[in-house]
């Protein structure tokens, strides 16, 4: 699988400067994304998943600021570009995002056509016919008919609105699409349809997805590789088989998360859970950030910082238990 890398992130740091202090929401994260693959990002709320997504588009929510690192898109550092250049060349052109609660991203007072057209007009010099053709093409691609263009958001169901937003994220033909909890507000049947749609699109358009969710069972269905985040850092990255396969994940956090995920076709007497809550990122614990909640904690875990290291090809873990030294 020597696929081309489309996105490389190196030591990315995003801090929120609040009155309580500096919140290290994304703390030195490095990963890369290959062509037409889906990278899943999982973690509890407050682990920095969404923050990382907004950082990739270089649009942190105030009082957040990117304080270090590199985001390499085809070898060029996005963070070095000016805001105008980012708007012209990066945002929506090469990386786009489907935001959390995307259904609420549509303006209720405009038709779908007007909203879609605005994005096109900002980015492309096109005749009206070309614009219409492109809008229709992408609506059909996500499984909607042309007459959706004339409708207002309130006339569409939740699933249809979600599809419109996905179409809008795709129709400038970006290389990377970040989906932040795209299915959380949807019913199971609609959720399955959206998941199928994303799988189809990945092959058809050769785009890469970053799929952010808190639900490990959805990641198992959509993601080729999974990145587990805890307290602003990466706890584990591995392929789908390495995380969900018979061998199981290596990091205790992933293991506990997986054990807490209910399964439909298995009878379980008692589901596991992780005691406690994720730490306050103003003053995170020393050493391994998971150690206060870890069930296999060792003495050195609270003392020494643990880095992300490879334990087998493509499988990186940040846990002292997995290393021999």
């Amino acid at each position: 699988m020597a696929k081309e890398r489309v996105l490389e992130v190196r030591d990315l740091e995003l801090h929120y400067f609040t009155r309580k202090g500096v919140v290290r929401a994304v703390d030195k994260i490095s990963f890369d994304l290959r062509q037409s693959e889906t990278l899943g990002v999982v973690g509890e709320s407050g682990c920095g998943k969404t923050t990382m997504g907004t950082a990739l588009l270089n649009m942190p929510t105030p009082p957040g600021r990117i304080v270090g690192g590199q985001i390499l898109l085809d070898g060029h550092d996005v963070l070095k570009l000016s805001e105008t250049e980012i708007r012209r060349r990066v945002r929506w052109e090469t990386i786009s995002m489907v935001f959390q609660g995307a259904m609420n991203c549509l303006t209720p007072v405009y038709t779908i056509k007007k909203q879609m057209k605005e994005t096109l007009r900002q980015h492309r010099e096109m005749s009206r016919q070309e614009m219409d053709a492109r809008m229709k093409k992408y609506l059909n691609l996500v499984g909607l008919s042309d007459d959706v263009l004339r409708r207002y958001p309130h006339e569409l169901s939740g699933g249809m609105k979600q599809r419109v937003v996905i179409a809008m994220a795709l129709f400038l033909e970006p290389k990377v699409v970040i989906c932040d909890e795209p299915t959380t507000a949807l019913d199971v049947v609609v959720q399955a349809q959206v998941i199928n749609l994303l799988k189809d699109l990945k092959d058809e358009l050769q785009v890469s997805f970053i799929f952010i969710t808190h639900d490990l069972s959805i990641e198992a269905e959509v993601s080729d590789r999974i990145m587990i985040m805890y307290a602003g850092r990466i706890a584990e990255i591995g392929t789908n088989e390495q995380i969900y396969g018979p061998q199981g994940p290596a990091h205790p956090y992933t293991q506990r998360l997986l054990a807490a995920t209910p399964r439909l076709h298995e009878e379980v007497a008692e589901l596991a859970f992780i005691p406690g809550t994720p730490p306050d990122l103003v003053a995170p614990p020393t050493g391994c950030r998971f150690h206060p909640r870890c069930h296999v904690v060792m003495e050195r875990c609270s003392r020494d910082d643990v880095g992300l290291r490879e334990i087998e090809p493509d499988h990186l873990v940040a846990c002292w238990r997995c290393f021999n030294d």
Partner: protein
Amino acid sequence: MTEPILVAENLTKWFPVKRTLTQITRGERTWVRAVDGVSFSINKGEIFGLVGESGCGKTTTGKLIMKLLDITDGRLHMHGDDVTHIQGARLAKHRREVQMIFQDPYSSMNPRFTVRDVLMEPLEIHKVGQNLQEREVWVREILNEVKLSPPDEFLVRHPHMLSGGQRQRAATARTLMLNPSVIVADEPVSMIDLSTRAEILSMMRQLQRELGLTYVYITHDLSTARYFVDRLAVMYLGKIVEMGPAGVVIDRCLHPYTQALIGAVCEPKSGRVNQIKDVPIKGEIPAATNIPPGCRFHPRCLFSVPECWEEVEPTLVDVGGGHMVACRRHEDIEKRGAAARTSDASLGVRRSSFEA
């Protein structure tokens, strides 16, 4: 032994839709048939699950049990008494007996109240306890019960100072204040992180055992329902289409709608990444103002035959062991299911269509 505590017979709730002038002059009325003839009986100490997609009437059913809404038609019995149209003192008593946990612990608690105020309020409204000291003792006891301890630390906190899980614990504590016998839990864990979901559910189950509670658990999540409930009812457009012990309904489901719901659930297993999920269902849920004739599921069903829309709607029939299903073709479906299980082939289901 098992005595029914709550019995619903043909429970119905229709909401009127605002009429246009033409409709008024013509004397036409349209209704949203949110709950359209639902019957069930819940035993004491049982956890009864209501599952379905949004808009299927599961929350409305919960509110009817609470008597937060007036019942349009049908009967509701509690402890053998008819409570369908009770008012005044009897209604107040019913509401003490039946309490509700709401989906969103953020919006169901007054942000200006401390946990103490939140928990004291039901006691004050229902004039329980002789004096403040007595109530305070009771509040502390309940806080320990839901494992918000030490109580002193939590009593003075406002809802925003609690984490999601703690807030849902406080909401559970509030329902327990009046010593109810039935608790309607409307999606109690859907807003909570996966890592703490199981913790809340096991706490709820422990309380149920200790205090002999009966739960009505309303959810759209079949996986937690399987783990948590004893008996499960699947609702579609205001009607129960399948009901029975949770394991049986999930593993041997007979209604095409239940099969679609189960097919749509994601499971944390490897090797499914590039496979397209088979969801045996067509189209989208119709509006509850315009319920299809005959079997209300037929436009989306892959098994439907002309009788399904030409004849009257099928009713729930017992297929053994308390497993009930409302489908004309359940025998055919069962045969196919059995054949599929033995030959290990998947049920002959087609991919869901994307047409809107």
